[in-house]
């Protein structure tokens, strides 16, 4: 199975990189960009064939390593 994990900074945590991207878009003439948040996508190839088990395992991976839940939220898609 394949898993796709989205990791984003939580609301309220300043994202200086997102802000820098927003400024760069403005200087390229893209007006009206009111906010940019930058995150990451992590794709995993799993040997597991049971969707529920895969989701549980990937969630555990997120809690232990893939995200720092002090500042980041995550979501898991299994396909």
């Amino acid at each position: 199975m394949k898993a796709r994990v989205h990791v984003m900074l939580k609301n309220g945590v300043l994202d200086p990189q997102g802000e820098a991207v927003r400024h760069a878009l403005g200087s390229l003439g893209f007006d009206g960009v009111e906010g940019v948040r930058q995150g990451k996508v992590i794709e995993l190839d799993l040997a597991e064939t049971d969707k529920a088990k895969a989701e549980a395992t990937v969630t555990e991976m997120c809690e232990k390593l893939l995200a720092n839940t002090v500042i980041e939220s995550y979501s898991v898609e299994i396909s």
Partner: protein
Amino acid sequence: MHAAVIVFPGSNCDRDMKVAFENAGAKVSMVWHKDTEMPAGVDVIGIPGGFSFGDYLRCGAIAANSPICRSVVTHAEKGGYVLGICNGFQVLTETGLLPGVLLRNARLKYICKAIDLKVETADSAYTSGYAQGEVITIPIAHHDGNYFADDATLAQLKAEDRVAFRYVDNPNGARDDIAGILSANRRVLGMMPHPERMADPVHGNTEGRKLFESLVGQLATA
């Protein structure tokens, strides 16, 4: 007094930390990240600055899950001393031994310069050689030194007198100007500035030296 300095791929202040401990009178063992146990009789573990594992994923995240870090956590949970400087501080937040996290600097620049640092508490083995409120000048060298913790955590750190150091002129956006914090038992210290880089007369000043001397002195007599 026996200190262990952990070496990760990408550590670059490990030797400086070793020299600072040795000059303060400690015996030092260098410990590789793939080792699973500390040498016998280690009193304090130093986690040095650098870019462990290239800062992949998040700074300190991969190092915090390396085999040796399990014994760092065990050491701390048994009441042992752990000093994390710069990347070492990032590793300590990732292990959960210290609260909060170090974000990218607010102005996105890597900053490498000497800064003024205020000693906020003299109540720890690390800071007892300084006076509370004393301002010392030591270098910072980081891209991710912007300390972040939620309001409840910040209030707790303040209430328990666990902010060890604050920046006089905040260079990186750190909340509440925090540069270094202590654990609840005051035996784990994480700090972004580099006292080991101001610990020898050839460094220009020796204001970081007292941190190592008071730690080693206190543990040698304990």
